[in-house]
């Protein structure tokens, strides 16, 4: 039996799992398909509900795994093949220096999520007008100090691709309500003159401090929340015209905006079904990896010895991904030690 654990994915869930296994005397091979560790977390500027420095937080965790001798990190690496069973898997890794075979006792899949590209939403002028951006692009703008200056209006649009059976996914992406509030606060902090508007259907603030965080956006940062799903974003004389119905009034409304931010859905990571086929595990209807039992065994895949962690299983926030990383680590240790 091999005492090593293979962790696929170097985002916060994979990093946490690697740290916990190493702290408890296990050995880890941590693979990442990109050139650097950190995953989606590393693309953020601030965390919520406390505005923490995301890049500092994640690099602290990355440095910890880099400094741990029992964690071997392989970047630019993909899993090409996987045979065997619990306690004795043979995996083929394609690295930048060619392929290599490894024998591992357990596997943790932590491949993260992908932000949906809202190209299907032509009614929002996405892809046509450079001032209609996704939340991820907004993060990048914030990190590079490119948020609009002066007397500007910024509109945040919830549920783009989420809760949309017709063009997106039926599920709620869970974190968009909170990160849109974060973005509205970031906007106000970066430009005190700016005015922010958030169009929502329902506000889902499902975490400790989340409700208070969103209330603070409204009460302390003067973000105006309007209940109604945005129907159209039109281009009008160099500005954007956002049209919706204020459903509490039952009245059509429009806002002239300089920037429109679309909170696009969290979707399954690209290539998740191919990855599942290589590993011999199941995915759900959306391509997220399927757990065998969602309440008491959230990190057990359909195959014994292969465990799941983080947002490759469902949309989730950083705190949950960390918790699931820790849980999957203890499951892997139970197999390998």
């Amino acid at each position: 039996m091999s005492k090593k654990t293979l962790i696929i994915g170097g985002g916060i869930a994979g990093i946490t799992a690697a740290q916990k296994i190493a702290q408890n005397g296990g050995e880890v091979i941590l693979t990442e398909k990109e050139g650097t560790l950190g995953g989606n977390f590393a693309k953020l500027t601030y965390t919520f509900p406390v505005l923490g420095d995301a890049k500092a937080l994640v690099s602290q965790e990355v440095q910890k795994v880099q400094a741990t001798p029992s964690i071997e990190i392989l970047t630019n690496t993909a899993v090409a093949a996987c045979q065997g069973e619990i306690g004795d898997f043979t995996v083929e890794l394609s690295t930048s220096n060619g392929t290599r075979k490894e024998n591992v006792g357990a596997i943790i899949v932590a491949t993260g999520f992908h932000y949906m590209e809202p190209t299907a939403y032509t009614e929002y002028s996405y892809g046509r007008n450079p001032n209609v951006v996704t939340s991820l692009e907004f993060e990048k703008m914030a990190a590079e100090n490119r948020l609009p200056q002066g007397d500007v209006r910024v509109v945040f649009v919830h549920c783009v691709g989420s809760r949309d059976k017709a063009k997106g996914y039926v599920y709620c992406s869970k974190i968009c309500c909170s990160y849109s509030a974060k973005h509205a606060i970031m906007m106000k902090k970066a430009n005190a003159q700016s005015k922010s508007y958030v169009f929502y259907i329902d506000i889902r603030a499902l975490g400790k401090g989340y409700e208070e965080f969103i209330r603070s956006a409204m009460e302390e940062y003067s973000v105006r929340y309007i209940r109604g799903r945005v129907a159209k974003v039109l281009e009008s004389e160099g500005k954007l015209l956002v049209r919706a119905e204020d459903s509490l009034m039952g009245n059509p409304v429009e806002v002239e905006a300089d920037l429109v931010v679309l909170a696009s859905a969290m979707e399954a990571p690209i290539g998740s079904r191919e990855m599942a086929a290589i590993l011999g595990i199941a995915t759900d209807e959306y391509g997220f990896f399927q757990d065998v039992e969602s309440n008491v065994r959230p990190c057990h895949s359909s195959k014994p010895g292969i465990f799941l962690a983080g947002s490759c299983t469902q949309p989730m926030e950083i705190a949950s991904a960390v918790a699931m990383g820790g849980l999957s680590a203890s499951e892997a240790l139970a197999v390998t030690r």
Partner: protein
Amino acid sequence: MRLRIHEDGIRTIVEEGIQKSLTACLQCSKCGGGCARTEEFDLSPRQVIEYLLDCLDEQVLDSRTIWLCGKNCTGCEAICPVGIPLNEIMATLREEAKRRGIEPKYVQPSLIYHKFEHCSKHRKEGEEC
């Protein structure tokens, strides 16, 4: 006046017609927000659905919306996130209204709508679209 909730309305006729439950509606209000003629409506399309669910049949059949919505236009259907066939619903409601002898409110579709909403070259001429 407080509404006493009950279940005996034309909702069932409408649902049989579209082979779908009206409870699919998210009440997100995207339909009314994008509608070019929403200002002529007394009920927005999602309100028609909520009224039907509440069995407020008379208010629905007496509304202007059912005579205006769903004629030569699929604006709301096209953007509805759950694909509710609003045109079919409105057609069923018009039939039901006719059966009950309720006079149509507006029969002619708005020509302004056709000219300015569907033809982008007119949009820049200062006309409301």
